[in-house]
């Protein structure tokens, strides 16, 4: 009996420890495999930072220069690794500064856990210094959020936060922790969360839906796949490729699906959407079976819904039931994780080729090549184009870099022309269109993939929204390659003003600082290119650098991105000029 008691006691000592909430939080992070977090300290999170100081051999904290930078860096890290990114901030303005990054992660389904400090429990609701209702504020833009006010809640809530952030359709979770819960002590024991009874992350695949899908695909004369980020998040790249090859089905990508399939694959026909490729858009309205995989029919993809793929039977492979029939009515919905559902579909698919149908994509590509692509990547005019810069980067990196873009014209050009051979390599703010995303996200991407070349492509506008993060690149010597495509304008808005507002350039002309000097101020190697003759050499120098490198390319001020589907127009009416 006595020995039994002693054993029990010993066991208890093994599994629990008496520690503060702040220390418990660090143990939670370590238990979840976190080794890197981005953040910014302040009053209400100081007990946690004190523990971070003690645990710095196990957990690296990167001090960004603004909390927005922390959120985007965590996103960049998550997108490139597939792991949960972690950002931390204090209460009040620290927390609200995270919100843009949280909203971005929500709409682009990025797994992220944000931890914010909060005023002590007894002060809640008293308008205390740096008190803000971050749970209220972040509710519409989080997958889940929670305010911890008692220390005992920490292990369970943190376990739940990570589970929810990464499972099913991933997304951001915010956990707000009052200061008393950080200071108080608990008997700490951590158990990973394996389920939440009210939450079903992955729907059960329905075999008959898969059979119906297979029948439609096998009988199709002009089948067409559009794949999105669901393929990447579900790690279904191999299954997608197998389906494309076995069925002989042309496949196009949404901006977030880019890199799920190598760009040079003969059946990879390009990008759909507002600035996507000509064939993939026009032929959306000529296919007979449209197979949408892990994509959500965003308005930038569909253009006018009333004229979108009306002729086609539509099959939707989707993990989130709320996306089914949300924007486009579908004939067959296949719920589940794409890796699993495509895996079940594959044996039912007949081997096929659709040569004539593929030829149509080739013909359309030829038209686009002659009217747009040729001029973009091999220009004959004097001014430098964004497209030729991308072409040089492709050549210098062997199509194997992680490309991080910001938002605007350069983003569209980067996504149109960057080439990829590996998945999880295109990091961009798709759904939210967050200017300022690029630089901090590139820091996170590089730190998540130190063995890979990470090139940030940024416009002169977005660059100045988070330019302060050069401080992180300098302090930690993060070898990111930064390319600013400078046209001295907010180029995309200017393009719209030119096309739809009779060239009234309201607040889109930028008088820019000397970006090279700014980079030099942070002791980052830098170079400016103003002539075509210098471009190749400069890009080669940048890629060869072992250290961070800043390259400014002065591009043509008033170039437009084409093709383009004007807002409200049909995909079939995409403009080539």
């Amino acid at each position: 009996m006595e020995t039994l008691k002693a054993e029990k006691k010993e066991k208890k000592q093994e599994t629990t420890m008496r520690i503060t909430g702040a220390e418990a939080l660090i143990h939670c992070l370590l238990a979840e495999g976190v080794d890197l977090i981005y953040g910014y300290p302040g009053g209400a999170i100081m007990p946690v930072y004190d523990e971070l100081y003690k645990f710095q051999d196990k957990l690296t904290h990167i001090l960004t220069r603004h909390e927005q930078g922390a959120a985007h860096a965590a996103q960049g890290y998550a997108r490139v690794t597939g792991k949960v990114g972690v950002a931390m901030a204090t209460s009040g303005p620290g927390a609200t500064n995270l919100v843009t990054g949280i909203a971005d992660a929500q709409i682009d389904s990025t797994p992220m856990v944000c931890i914010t400090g909060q005023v002590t429990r007894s002060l809640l609701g008293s308008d205390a210094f740096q008190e803000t209702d971050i749970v209220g504020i972040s509710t519409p833009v989080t997958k889940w959020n929670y305010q911890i006010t008692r220390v005992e809640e920490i292990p369970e809530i943190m376990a739940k936060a990570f589970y929810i952030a990464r499972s099913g359709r991933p997304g951001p979770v915010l956990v707000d922790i009052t200061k008393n819960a950080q200071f108080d002590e608990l008997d700490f024991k951590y158990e990973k969360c394996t389920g939440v009874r009210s939450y079903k992350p992955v729907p059960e695949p329905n075999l008959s839906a898969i059979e119906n899908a297979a029948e439609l695909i096998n009988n199709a004369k002009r089948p067409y796949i559009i794949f999105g980020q669901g393929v990447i998040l579900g790690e279904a790249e191999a299954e997608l490729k197998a389906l494309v090859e076995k069925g002989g089905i042309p496949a196009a990508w949404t901006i977030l699906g880019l890199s799920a399939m190598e760009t040079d694959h003969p059946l990879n026909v390009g990008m759909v959407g507002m600035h996507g490729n000509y064939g993939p858009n026009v032929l959306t309205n000529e296919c007979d079976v449209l197979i949408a995989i892990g994509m959500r029919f965003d308005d930038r993809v569909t253009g006018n819904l009333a004229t979108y793929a009306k002729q086609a039977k539509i099959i939707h492979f989707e993990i989130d039931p709320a996306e089914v029939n949300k924007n486009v009515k579908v004939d067959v919905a296949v719920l589940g994780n794409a890796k699993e559902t495509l895996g079940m579909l594959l044996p039912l698919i007949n081997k096929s080729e659709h040569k004539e149908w593929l030829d149509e994509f080739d013909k359309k590509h030829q038209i686009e090549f002659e009217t747009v692509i040729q001029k973009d990547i091999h220009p004959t005019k004097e001014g430098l184009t964004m497209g030729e810069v991308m072409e040089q980067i492709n050549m210098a990196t062997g199509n194997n870099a992680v490309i991080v873009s910001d938002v605007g014209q350069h983003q569209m050009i980067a996504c149109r022309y960057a080439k990829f051979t590996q998945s999880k390599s295109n990091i961009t703010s798709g759904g939210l269109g967050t200017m300022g995303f690029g630089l901090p996200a590139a820091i996170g991407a590089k730190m998540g993939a130190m063995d890979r070349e990470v090139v940030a492509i940024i416009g002169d506008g977005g660059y100045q929204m988070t330019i302060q993060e050069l401080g992180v690149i300098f302090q930690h010597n993060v070898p990111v390659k930064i390319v600013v495509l400078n046209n001295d304008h907010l180029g995309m808005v200017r393009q719209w003003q030119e096309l739809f507002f009779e060239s009234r350039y309201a607040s889109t002309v930028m008088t820019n600082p000397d970006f090279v000097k700014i980079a030099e101020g942070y002791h980052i190697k830098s170079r400016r290119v103003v002539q075509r003759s210098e471009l190749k050499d400069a890009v080669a120098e940048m890629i060869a650098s072992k250290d961070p490198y800043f390259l400014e390319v002065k591009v043509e001020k008033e170039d437009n991105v084409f093709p383009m589907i004007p807002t409200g127009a049909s995909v079939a009416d995409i403009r080539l000029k």
Partner: protein
Amino acid sequence: MEKQWYTISVYSENNVGLLNRISGIFLKRHINIEGLNVSKSEIEHVSKFTIVVNTTEDWTRKIVQQIEKQVEVIKAFYHTDDDIIYQESALFKIASHLLFDERQIQNIIKESNSQIVTVSREFFVLAKTGRRHEIDEMHDALEPYGIMQFVRSGRIAVTKAAMPISELLTEFQEN
């Protein structure tokens, strides 16, 4: 598509922030919540939201999908008025002297099948349970005499068919 009344039943974990999360789904789409009631449900520790909206079926379906997507929501359903048995409650506070001065008021009380909850020297309170239009009719009948205070509850409803939720929860408990 035509607008009509829909009653949405949401079974959820009892969580402080959830009402905010759910109401945000309506707010974002500019759909007015015409009635809201939160109570415990037939299942222990499970709350039930009963929400009434006047909109199209397409919107209602999309809203229910978004509600069900929330982590703490166990299951959400929508029903037309024909699918459910539903009631609302109302209280009317009226000056006591009217009970004697206006004979018609007594008739209204009888005809509407309402109850006098309390009577004091200054006022009396009528309680009425019924369908929305019945309460509206009673309100219209009393209004000419002067209503000191009026309040109506959100709709509460049960479905005629079985709600496919109990099986789901049994399944949860087994796991």
